[in-house]
C-alpha cells in the first residue's frame, strides 16, 4: 500500500475552490423552491382554515427540527475537532465548518414557532399560561398543579429568552470559529496562533453546544406534551444529530472528491475514519434509544409511558419496529465491513440510508403527538382524538421539501465561499498523510 507521500508541493497555495458556476443551477432551483415553499407555508400556518394550520404546525416543527439537528451536528464536529487537538480531520474540517455555518440560517426557520398563532396547536402548556387571568402562578396553582410546579422552567418569558439564546449563542460560536479558520487560508505567514486560539475557544463553547442540542430538544419537542419527560432526551437527540451530520459530511466530501476536489489531502483513510464515526454513532444512537425505552418500560410511570404508548399504537408501532431494525441492526451489520468504509461510493450509500432513517426517527419524534394534541385542544374543529390525521402527510412533505431546499442552498453557498480545505493549516500535511 505504498502511496505517494504528500508534501507541501501538493497543497494548492491559494486553496482549492469550488467552481460556483457548476452548482449555480442547483442553488437557484433550491432557493426558488425554498422561497415559494416558505410563502405557501406561511400562508398555511397563519391564514389557512384552522384545520389545516393546526396540522401544518406539526409539519413545520418536524422539518425545522430535523434540519436543525444536522446543522448543530456540524458545529459539534468542528468544536470536537478543535478541542481534541485532532490532526486526522484537518483536510475535511472545512466541511464540518460549512455544515455548522448553516445553523444561523436554519434557526431562522423556527421564527414561526415563536408566534402564539402557531404555538397554540403545539404547546398546550402555553395555552394554559396565556389563559391565565391576573397572577399566572396563582392561576396555575388552582388550574393545573403540574404546571404550577414546573413554572420555574416552563414560563413564557424564560422560554423566549432561552430560545433566543440557543439561536444567537451557537451562531456566534460557529461564525467565529469559521472566520478564524478562513483567515488562515490567506495569511502569508501562517503560524499556529489561530490553531491554539480555536482550541481554546472551543473548550467553553462546547458547553453552549451541549446546552443547545439538549434544551432546543426540551423547548421545542419535549414541550409538545408538558406532562411527559425523559432524562435521556437530550443525549438521544444528540446521538441522532452527531450521527447524521457525519452522514452529511461524508456525502459532501464524497461529492467534492468525485468532482476532482480535495485531491492529495483526502483518501480512503479519511473515509475510513468518518465511516468508523458513522458506525460508532449508529451504535451509540441504539444504545441511548434503547436505554430510554428500557427505563420507561421498566419503571412503568404513567407520565413517562405516554410517549411509547402513543408510538406503539396502530401503524406507528410498525414504524417503531422498522426503526429498531432499519436504524440499528441493518447499518450495524453492514458498517462492520472495513473495505466498505474506505470506499467513498459505498460509504455514501450507507450515509444516505442513515439520513433516510433519521427522517423516520424525527417523524416519529414529532408527528404522532399531532392527532392527540389537536383533538384535545379543539374538539369542534379537529374532531375526536385520533392516531393520525388523514391527509396531513402532504403538509409534512411540503415543509420538509421547503426547509430541505433552504438547507441545501445554504450548504452549497457555504461550500462555494472559501477554500474546500484549510490549505495553510499547520496540520494539513499530517492530515493528508494520515494512516490508521
Amino acid at each position, binding site marked *: *500500500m*505504498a502511496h505517494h507521500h504528500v508534501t507541501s508541493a501538493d497543497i494548492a497555495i491559494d486553496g482549492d475552490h469550488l467552481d460556483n458556476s457548476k452548482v449555480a443551477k442547483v442553488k437557484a432551483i433550491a432557493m426558488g423552491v425554498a422561497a415559494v415553499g416558505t410563502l405557501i407555508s406561511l400562508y398555511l400556518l397563519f391564514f389557512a382554515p384552522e384545520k389545516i394550520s393546526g396540522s401544518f404546525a406539526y409539519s413545520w416543527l418536524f422539518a425545522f427540527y430535523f434540519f436543525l439537528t444536522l446543522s448543530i451536528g456540524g458545529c459539534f464536529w468542528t468544536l470536537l475537532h478543535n478541542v481534541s487537538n485532532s490532526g486526522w480531520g484537518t483536510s475535511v474540517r472545512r466541511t464540518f465548518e460549512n455544515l455548522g455555518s448553516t445553523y444561523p440560517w436554519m434557526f431562522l426557520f423556527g421564527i414561526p414557532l415563536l408566534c402564539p398563532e402557531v404555538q397554540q396547536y403545539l404547546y398546550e402548556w402555553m395555552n394554559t399560561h396565556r389563559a391565565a387571568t391576573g397572577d399566572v402562578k396563582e392561576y396555575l396553582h388552582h388550574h393545573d398543579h403540574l404546571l404550577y410546579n414546573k413554572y420555574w422552567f416552563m414560563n413564557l418569558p424564560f422560554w423566549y429568552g432561552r430560545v433566543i439564546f440557543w439561536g444567537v449563542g451557537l451562531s456566534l460560536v460557529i461564525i467565529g470559529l469559521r472566520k478564524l479558520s478562513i483567515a488562515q487560508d490567506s495569511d502569508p505567514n501562517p503560524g499556529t496562533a489561530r490553531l491554539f486560539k480555536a482550541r481554546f475557544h472551543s473548550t467553553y463553547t462546547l458547553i453552549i453546544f451541549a446546552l443547545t442540542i439538549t434544551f432546543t430538544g426540551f423547548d421545542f419537542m419535549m414541550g409538545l406534551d408538558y406532562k411527559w419527560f425523559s432524562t435521556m432526551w437530550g443525549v438521544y437527540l444528540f446521538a441522532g444529530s452527531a450521527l447524521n451530520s457525519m452522514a452529511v459530511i461524508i456525502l459532501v466530501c464524497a461529492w467534492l472528491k468525485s468532482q476532482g476536489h480535495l485531491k492529495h489531502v483526502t483518501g480512503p483513510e479519511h473515509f475510513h475514519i468518518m465511516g468508523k464515526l458513522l458506525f460508532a454513532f449508529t451504535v451509540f444512537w441504539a444504545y441511548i434509544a434503547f436505554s430510554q425505552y*428500557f427505563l420507561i418500560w421498566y419503571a*412503568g410511570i404513567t407520565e413517562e409511558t405516554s410517549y411509547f404508548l402513543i408510538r406503539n399504537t396502530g401503524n406507528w408501532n410498525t414504524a417503531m419496529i422498522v426503526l429498531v431494525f432499519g436504524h440499528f441492526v441493518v447499518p450495524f451489520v453492514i458498517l462492520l465491513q*472495513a473495505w466498505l468504509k474506505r470506499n467513498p461510493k459505498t460509504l455514501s450509500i450507507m450515509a444516505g440510508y442513515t439520513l433516510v432513517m433519521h427522517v423516520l426517527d424525527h417523524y416519529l419524534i414529532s408527528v404522532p403527538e399531532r392527532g392527540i394534541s389537536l383533538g384535545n385542544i379543539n374538539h369542534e374543529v379537529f374532531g375526536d382524538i385520533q392516531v393520525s390525521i388523514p391527509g396531513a402527510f402532504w403538509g409534512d412533505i411540503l415543509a420538509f421539501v421547503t426547509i430541505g431546499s433552504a438547507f441545501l442552498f445554504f450548504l452549497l453557498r457555504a461550500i462555494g465561499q472559501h477554500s474546500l480545505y484549510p490549505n495553510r493549516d499547520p496540520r494539513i500535511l499530517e492530515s493528508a498523510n494520515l494512516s490508521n
Partner: protein
Amino acid sequence: MSTTRKRVYGYLAEFKSASALYKAAEKIRDAGFRKWDCYSPYPIHGLDGAMGLKRSILPWFVFFGGMTGTATAFTLAYSTQVVIYPTVVQAKPANIFTIPAFFPVMFELTILFSGFTVLFGLLALIQLPRLNHPLFASKQFHRATDDGFFIAIEARDSKFSPNATRELLAEIGGANIELVEEED
C-alpha cells in the same frame, strides 16, 4: 571438537531507523518472502501494509464468539424467566415480547464472549505463551525492546538461500547480519 549440529533459524539483520525498517520490509515483501517478521520497540503505522500482511481472521472469530454470547444469554434468560420460573413484576407479562428485559444480559454476555474470543483467539494465533524463541539465541536481539529495529527471515521460507538472502539483507541496508541457530 564438538560435532553437534544446530538447526538454523534464519537471518537476523538490524536497521538503523523505523523508516529504514519500513522501506526494507517493502523490499522483502516484493521479493516474495512469506516466513519473516519485523521487530521494533514500538508500533509503526502502516508497517502491516509494508509487510504485505493480510487481514487477520480474528474479527470473524470474535463475531461468532459474540453471537454465541448473545444466544447463550437469551437462552439463559428465556428459559429461567419465561419457561421455568416466570417472575411477574408490576403485572408485566413474561413471554417472548418481554425480550427488552433480557437485552442488558444479552448485551453483557455478547461483550464478555467477544472479549474472551479476542484474548484467547489472539494468543492462539500468535502462539503464545511459549517458553522460548529461537531469536533469543542472538546476542543483539534484546535491543528490539530498546532501540533496535530488526528483520528476521526464517530458513524454512521456500525462497531462503544461505548466500542470496544474506546479500539481499545487506543490499537493502541491513547491518550486523547474523545467522541465528536454535540452541540445542
